[in-house]
């Protein structure tokens, strides 16, 4: 139990810390912001349930009033803003990402994690974001979707980075991935 709480809480802290890290350059040239990379890693490393709880914890803490979101943002107002869906969707995104990694026991970890991050933290998360845009800002879902498309290439690069990092971590410490050990 202590181990669960420690892993979940510290990963939430990692997601928060990554909100303060400047954008990371990529070989493609598009710099990526680190915070959602943390949301991806919560899923690929901790698995579906714990990853989702880590993301949920940081979302709750941000809404309660700690400035842990990129740019030092936070507070209850975020819940009513146009980007609320992209934030509130984090737990679901981590869950789906983690679930895919867990279910595919075998298979190249880099490929599986990258794909999981794309499905969970791009496709599912953007869906949440588009719904949020409709609910909070009356934006037609098709328009919202089209408008979000420009961010997709950058986020796919981010997902590939997440896959690479996950694979490197698993290589450095075999057995450390909670998403791949049976527990």
């Amino acid at each position, binding site marked *: 139990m*202590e181990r669960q*709480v420690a892993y979940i809480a510290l*990963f939430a802290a*990692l997601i928060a*810390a990554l909100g303060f890290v400047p954008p990371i350059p990529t070989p493609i040239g598009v710099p990526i912001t680190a915070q959602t990379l943390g949301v991806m890693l919560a899923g690929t490393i901790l698995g579906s349930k714990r990853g989702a709880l880590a993301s949920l914890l940081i979302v709750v803490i941000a809404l*309660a009033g700690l400035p842990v979101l990129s740019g030092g943002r936070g*507070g*209850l107002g975020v819940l009513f803003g146009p980007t609320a869906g992209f934030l509130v969707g984090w737990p679901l995104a981590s869950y789906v990402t983690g679930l895919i990694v867990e279910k595919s026991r075998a298979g190249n970890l880099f490929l599986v994690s990258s794909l999981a991050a794309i499905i969970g933290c791009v496709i599912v998360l953007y869906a949440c974001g588009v719904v949020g845009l409709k609910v909070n800002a009356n934006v037609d879902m098709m328009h919202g979707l089209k408008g979000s498309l420009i961010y997709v290439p950058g986020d796919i690069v981010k997902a590939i980075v997440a896959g690479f990092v996950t694979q490197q971590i698993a290589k450095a410490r075999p057995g450390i991935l909670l998403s791949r050990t049976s527990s």
Partner: protein
Amino acid sequence: MLSLTVETKSWMHRWPVETKLLLVCLFSLLMVPVNDWRLALFGLIAVALLYASAGWAFAKIGLVRLRPLSYLVALLFLYFVLTARLEEGLLVSFKLFATIGFANLVTMTSRLDDLMAVVEWLAKPLRFFGLPPRALSFAMGLVVRFTPLFLQKSELLHQAWRARSPKKSSARLLVPLALNVLDDADHVAEALRARGGIGSHKGAQPTNKNKS
């Protein structure tokens, strides 16, 4: 890590958090059926008056906090103009500023501890799923404690990188950072166990007051 609560006291600071949160829910629900931008503007002015009632310094902080939102709203407004929905654009813009501004008031006038107490109360049913009562406040304390530490580790790793490379940063640095996080999690788990754990057994629990 400093919270977003504003130190200078106002009359709103004295109201209980639960009441304020209920009012936010009510306000946003009230805003849903509003279809006339003039009504939305009225709501926004009401919120602005609330800010003003707490003093000019307080209102200024509130404005600063809304600044990042302004860029988004400007973009949204442009979208509505381009889709020939000018009045809807005005409506949405005013509604957003009004509801977000009102919600931010709660953040600015409530202590983090009090807000987290509400979260804990809401999470009570989870006890039936095995969540120990203390777990949430422990977790919260850990997040507050470790976020600056991880930021520091990230900075040191960046220094170690920049000492040997002309580039400023790299995604590679996430590997040692994540490994550090996992190692720290193991140590924290040990420390928690050594202090009696956070299981659902009754008895003296170590208090974990974290002033933010």
